[in-house]
């Protein structure tokens, strides 16, 4: 089974429409999320689907792949109307969706995952040898050097993505839909993924690629379809569009100013002083000062120790040495509770896993970190409701229904709620880890301005980000970490991508850094 030769180039398929959605409408209950959206996907093209959070991208691809049924409109596959009753029917027709959250069984091996539910058998028994060989062949085809016997939990996220793609190939995907595949990937991993996408395109596979990263779309896509508020806005050839054009189509207006004006006072008093903090195996002798009203960026490649350092500062991780001072006074922080008392708040980068209670509505989420504010003996529900009212207003949280579960919110609204939750404790210092991961450009700009407002009110912000533009656009100073050390603190004109990379990779280091050796 699983004859992968089926993906050989089909010359006549070049440019031919494989799958179309015609006037697709979709409503969930009373809320309509798609309005007469039409899209054509050609064989051998990478077609980007662009839109803000909540624009209807995910709903559209779920309809195209059979996970949802359209309320009206039809699907056309190879000039014939089709109905995908569920995703299995879609997959049988060669339309395969790879979800944003990968669907792999962590405890099973790569080969077991690839053939999950479609195991190759010999008589009543599994033909493991055949499956291993087939898995190896698929991975080789992707030029992916993973042992099929590895367990998924031992793989990096990018490798897991490759396994998903291999699995899709083994199901003879003619049309591959990738839902924000790069959200969790590092720069190098993105390059690998793009190589694979190009290879598949050359083989005639039609690829629908969801993203709101404009750079990526420029780099990989042939055509782009823009959705906004459930409406089809435009379908254009990518080569004819500038990034600004795409942003405008997506947001529906010019983004006046992505970043807030920064005017930090470099003579302001020091709010937080970190001295020689070490964490076994992860951070060595990190020292830095944070001034009132400044944004101090922390840059570095994954594994440089930034998150570990922050966790050590707020008491989530044990320090092997080091002191912390608040406003010049030494403080003892060994738990998040201590950090809260010292006015330090931490915004996790994992908003779904450690930030919000997805099965609950907004109110308990908002007040959870500052519960004592809402009553020590009995909770004051009225006060909670009032706080929610204020937060919705202040952070522009857009929820159709206040009672709906937070897990159903778009990423942008979740992030705003998380920010509101942390601000309920009225901290002086806010540590923000990846503030805009998986968030559309309009909401991003909003969050940047929230951060700007915080510093205008005299609060200090530590920003951890892997997105260079926001690191450069928001930070007054940038500390760079490599191998668990702070290799430099860049100020003024020194804050540029080149210098950051030099320090992050350890090419240059220590100049200008207040590092104690």
């Amino acid at each position, binding site marked *: 089974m699983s004859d992968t030769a089926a993906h050989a180039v089909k010359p006549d398929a070049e440019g031919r429409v494989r799958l179309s959605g015609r006037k697709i409408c979709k409503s969930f209950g009373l809320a309509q999320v798609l309005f007469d959206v039409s899209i054509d996907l050609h064989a051998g093209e990478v077609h980007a689907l662009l839109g803000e959070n909540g624009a209807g991208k995910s709903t559209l691809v779920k309809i195209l792949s059979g996970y*949802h049924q359209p309320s009206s409109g039809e699907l056309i596959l190879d000039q014939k109307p089709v109905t995908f009753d569920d995703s299995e029917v879609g997959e049988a027709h060669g339309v395969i969706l790879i979800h944003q959250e990968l669907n792999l069984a962590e405890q099973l091996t790569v080969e077991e995952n690839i053939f999950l539910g479609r195991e190759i058998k010999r008589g009543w028994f599994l033909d493991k040898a055949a499956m291993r060989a087939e898995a190896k062949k698929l991975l080789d085809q992707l030029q992916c050097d993973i042992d099929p016997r590895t367990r998924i939990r031992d793989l990096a996220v990018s490798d897991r993505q490759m396994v998903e793609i291999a699995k899709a190939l083994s199901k003879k995907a003619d049309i591959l839909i990738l839902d924000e595949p790069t959200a969790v990937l590092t720069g190098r991993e993105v390059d690998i993924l793009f190589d694979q996408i190009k290879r598949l395109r050359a083989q005639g596979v039609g690829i629908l690629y969801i993203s709101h990263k404009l750079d990526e779309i420029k780099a990989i896509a042939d055509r782009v379809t823009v959705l906004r508020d459930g409406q089809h806005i435009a379908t254009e050839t990518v080569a004819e569009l500038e990034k600004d054009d795409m942003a405008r189509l997506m947001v529906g207006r010019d983004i006046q100013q992505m970043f807030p004006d920064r005017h930090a006072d470099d003579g302001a008093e020091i709010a937080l002083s970190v001295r020689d903090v070490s964490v076994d195996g992860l951070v060595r002798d990190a020292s830095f000062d944070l001034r009132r009203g400044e944004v101090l960026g922390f840059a570095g490649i994954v594994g440089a120790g930034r998150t570990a350092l922050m966790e050590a500062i707020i008491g989530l991780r044990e320090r092997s040495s080091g002191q912390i001072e608040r406003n010049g006074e030494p403080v003892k922080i060994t738990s998040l*509770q201590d950090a809260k008392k010292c006015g330090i708040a931490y915004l996790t980068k994992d908003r779904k896993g450690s930030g919000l209670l997805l099965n609950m509505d907004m109110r308990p989420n908002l007040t959870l970190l500052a519960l004592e504010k809402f*009553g020590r003996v009995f909770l004051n529900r009225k006060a909670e409701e009032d706080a929610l009212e204020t937060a919705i207003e202040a952070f522009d949280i857009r929820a159709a229904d206040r009672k709906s579960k937070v897990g*159903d919110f*778009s990423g942008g609204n979740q992030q705003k709620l998380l920010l509101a939750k942390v601000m309920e404790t009225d901290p002086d210092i806010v540590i923000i880890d990846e503030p805009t991961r998986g968030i559309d450009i309009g909401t991003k700009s909003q969050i940047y301005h929230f951060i700007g407002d915080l510093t205008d009110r005299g609060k200090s912000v530590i920003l951890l980000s892997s997105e260079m533009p926001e690191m450069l656009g928001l930070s007054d100073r940038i500390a760079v970490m490599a191998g668990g050390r702070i290799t430099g603190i860049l100020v003024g004109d020194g804050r540029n991508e080149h210098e950051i990379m030099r320090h992050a990779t350890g090419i240059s280091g220590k100049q200008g850094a207040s590092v104690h050796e």
Partner: protein
Amino acid sequence: MSSVERNEAPTKKTSGGFNIDFKALGPFLALVGLFILGTLINEAFLSGGNLSNIFTRAAFIGIIAVGATFVITAGGIDLSVGSMAAFISGAMIVVMNGLVATLGAGVETVLLGILLSVVLGIGAGAVNGLVSTKGKIEAFIVTLGTMGIYRSLVTYMADGGTLSLDFDIRGVYRPVYYGDVMGIPIPVLVFFAVAVAGYVLLNMTPFGRKCFAIGSNEQVARYSAIHVDRVKTLTYVIQGLCVSIATIIYVPRLGSASSSTGVLWELEAIAAVIIGGTMLKGGYGRIWGTVIGAIMLTTIGNILNLTDAISNYLNGAVQGLIIIVAVFLQRGDWRRKKSK
């Protein structure tokens, strides 16, 4: 390119209000159905004596189940409650009998027995909580272990037989089970009081909110500056206290304890909690549901006693069936279209 009105976060809306009403009212409607069924089968069902009997019986499991609601809401499980009840009963009897010689068979002796019960209940709960949180061992394993320990301790104390309460103390202690206030049996009053206290604690205090948060996602709770271990341990302490209260009422009923005391109570308590709509995986708990669940379980046994249609020996089978059906109905998936 005209701007349209926004409709954010509309994904995955549950299919309307009917769903929620059904979830909240389901156990209550089922109980009403059982009562109607009981009345149809035998008119004696609705007699004051029989109803009083049902509620008094339900009080034991119900009080324990109120405690279990906290444990389960916070994402834990306590399998040891039945054995714990037997052990506390045994210890109370042994100590009270021993005190007769010095204090006499008076109220003081009974009060000391009750005090002992409370101390043991809280202590046993704290052991369950601390071992599972500080020792980082699954609560299922820890309480499976303590279940065996308490069970064998009571067997040991009774030397394999039965511990009997001193006859004179029984006379003094008797009203705690058989007494009533304005016609309402004391166990029922205590059950009601425990349920009200449990409701207030779970739904109106920061502690209750923290239980929900921990059961819903422990990591989020930890990142929300909640002392997760402390709150979880407290839920086991509450469970222990509830077991102790149930035991205090139980001892005067039979005036004895043996290795078969409280057998399978843990499962009945968990069943009551689940029938009531609390989620076994944590994050959502409902005290009133638990109360109704406990009454339902007792009512089933009662109805089977009143009819010859089904053998009383099949009580467990009917209860089991009801549990499965109840959870199936509450999930609501059976009505919703398959969507992913």
